[in-house]
């Protein structure tokens, strides 16, 4: 009696000419990457964040998520590319962006708001999404969808960093699938800032940011901070095709200075 593996080989061999795609391994595409402008993070990601894909930057408050996103936008806008920041909680600080080197003229800032005064009724008809808690989230998702469909943006940051995880976890997976397709089609790097990963398999890269337990002590002024970043998921890595076998995700640390510090002191 033939063994199961032999039977399987026999069946595959018989059907190979009829269903070639089903029985041949899918070729993994190596995505183009764009440098974040932070050497430690670029080394960790072996080049930078992927172009035409979703990257999630997650972590708690004060873990360097926004600084990392601004550094990436600075690198992109200095290449004369156009970027967008969809700000669900109106938390974007333009002074910090300018200090990080973001060309503000190249940046489209969409400031969502909680109140609906003077605004047309949202397209979403679900009762849950019409609640004030979800209104800014609904606005942010719709704005991101529009920007992705418009095309031409090198990077779009969907800033849900201040959105509680229990709210952001309710974003339908279909939304992330749609965003992934649109980002791929328009070659746009979609950065999602959040407290927890949301996009699941739609995200090409998930970075988890943390702040070291013992922050550096300064004498009189708060002159900088050191952050730690780990790769939670890398779907299409340039050189190592699959990292799931690694027990501990690789990590890297990087430092950010205060905005008022001179370049020479960095």
């Amino acid at each position: 009696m033939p063994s199961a593996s032999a039977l399987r080989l026999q069946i595959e061999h018989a059907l190979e000419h009829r269903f070639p795609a089903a029985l041949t391994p899918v070729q993994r595409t190596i995505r183009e990457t764009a440098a974040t402008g932070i050497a430690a993070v670029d080394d960790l990601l072996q080049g930078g964040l992927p172009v035409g894909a979703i990257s999630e930057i997650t972590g708690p408050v004060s873990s360097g998520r926004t600084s990392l996103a601004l550094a990436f936008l600075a690198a992109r806008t200095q290449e004369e590319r156009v970027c967008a920041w969809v700000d669900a909680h109106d938390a974007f600080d333009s002074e910090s962006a300018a200090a990080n080197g973001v060309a503000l003229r190249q940046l489209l800032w969409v400031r969502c708001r909680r109140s609906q005064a003077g605004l047309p009724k949202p397209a979403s008809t679900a009762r849950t999404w019409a609640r004030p808690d979800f209104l800014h989230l609904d606005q942010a998702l719709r704005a991101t969808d529009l920007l992705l469909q418009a095309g031409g943006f090198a990077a779009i940051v969907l800033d849900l960093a201040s959105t509680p995880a229990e709210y952001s976890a309710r974003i339908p997976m279909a939304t992330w699938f749609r965003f992934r397709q649109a980002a791929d089609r328009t070659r746009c790097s979609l950065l999602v800032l959040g407290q927890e990963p949301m996009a699941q398999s739609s995200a090409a890269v998930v970075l988890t940011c943390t702040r070291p337990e013992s922050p550096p002590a300064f004498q009189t002024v708060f002159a900088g901070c050191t952050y730690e970043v780990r790769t939670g998921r890398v779907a299409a890595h340039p050189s190592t095709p699959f990292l799931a076998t690694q027990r501990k995700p690789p990590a890297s640390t990087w430092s950010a200075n205060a905005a008022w510090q001179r370049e020479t002191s960095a």
Partner: protein
Amino acid sequence: MTAPLYACIYAEEFPAQALLRLRTDLAVQPVAVLGGRPPLETVCSLNRLARMKGATHGMTRLECETIPDLHLLTRSLETEAAARAVMLECAAQFSPRVESVSEENACACVLDIAGTERLFGPPRTLAERLREALTAAGLRASIAVSANFDAARLKAASARGITVIPPSHEAIALSGLSLSVLGLSEDYAETLATWGIRTLGELAALPASDMVARLGPQAADWRKIAQGVLPHTFQPIEDPFSLEEFCAFETPVEQIDSLLFVGARMIDCLAARAGAHALSLASLDLHMQLDGGRTYRRAIRPALPTVDRKFLLKLLQLEVAAHPPEAAVLSLALSAQAGQSSKVQLGLFAPQTPEPSRLDVTIARLKAIAGEDRVGSPVLEDTHRPGSFRMESFAVTQSASAQAIGSCTPRMALRRVRPPAQIRMQLAESKPSAFRDREQSYRVAEAYGPWRSSGCWWSTEPWDSEEWDVLAESNSGSSIACLLVRDCAQNQWQLEAYYD
């Protein structure tokens, strides 16, 4: 010298045509246009279907209302002026010399087309193309071509379609026309009728000297007109090029979709007229007269001049949807500024940027979602006030590389809390030691400060604050780095931003 050649455009029932040009939904309906002062309005113009229904000129409103399915519209001189401008622009596509010969109920003009044969082909071809252009603009007109000015004018007024009168055949072509086309006074018309003269052919056959002896010197001109030999000094009109469309509604319009239906047709016409001059539409000014005497004005300015009708209509739709009129609309006027068509040389290695026209629509949609003043580019203000900025409209500029750009070293970014959250602060030795933000308590691990700043004491919006950079831990064990501010004027502590 080139032989004279004229083409006459004659649009009968012009008040009705002008109104129906933008109301394509009524094109297959019987329509009568009422003129005069209410309640003594009478029919001044009507279309063919209305005539078939039994409507005639001079009927009162009451008489018209007895005819089933007859649509009654009110005459609009503004709409007629806009339609007349459209007709003259169509004519200007074929000849720069155009003379207006409009009559009471018809709009007519004569083109001097001498020497245009190499451009537009034989006279019949030119007439066919001219008629196609008029039809595309929503006007129905008859066209006559002749070497004599008056022959072309009279033949166009009396015949439908296209008529080309060969040279030296003017008298034959006009012979069958009634004497009424000359517009004679009642006395002369009666005299000629008693002589048995009813057509131009019979008038042309009369001896000239005897006619002048009995009817006066003007009779010689009538005879020459009837023979098609009266010379004419051409007086071309020079109307300034303006892109304006107007439509008055017979009943107040409340639905935006109905408004856009007419607006789409207007944009079509404006784009076609601008395109005929090799121009584009740089801006659109929307003016509505609202019920109750109020007016509504909005301006649409695309990033680049364009004649893309769908794109302009989308911008119009989004603008009206974002700022709906406060009352029903009585009339709609669209005026446009012409601009040079955009020509952008794209570089082979230039970075990808959003398409300007598509970006305009996207930004308009984003403004509809987030708010008018909440979409754009941030610009830092020239002040020391913390967190001050202003929003400017976003536009893709090519000169961004020339602007000064900050450092590339990573900097700690702030996440602003807008508006700043009020907190309860505990101080120890004049330094923050603990604070409470709503339901969360924090113990301050490190506090750096204070950094005092103040300004604008001379204005109505002064500020005087004390900033602290704080590293704190919550009861749950999470740590944060934040910016706390004490408003010195009111002695209130606020959570201004988080470092992130």
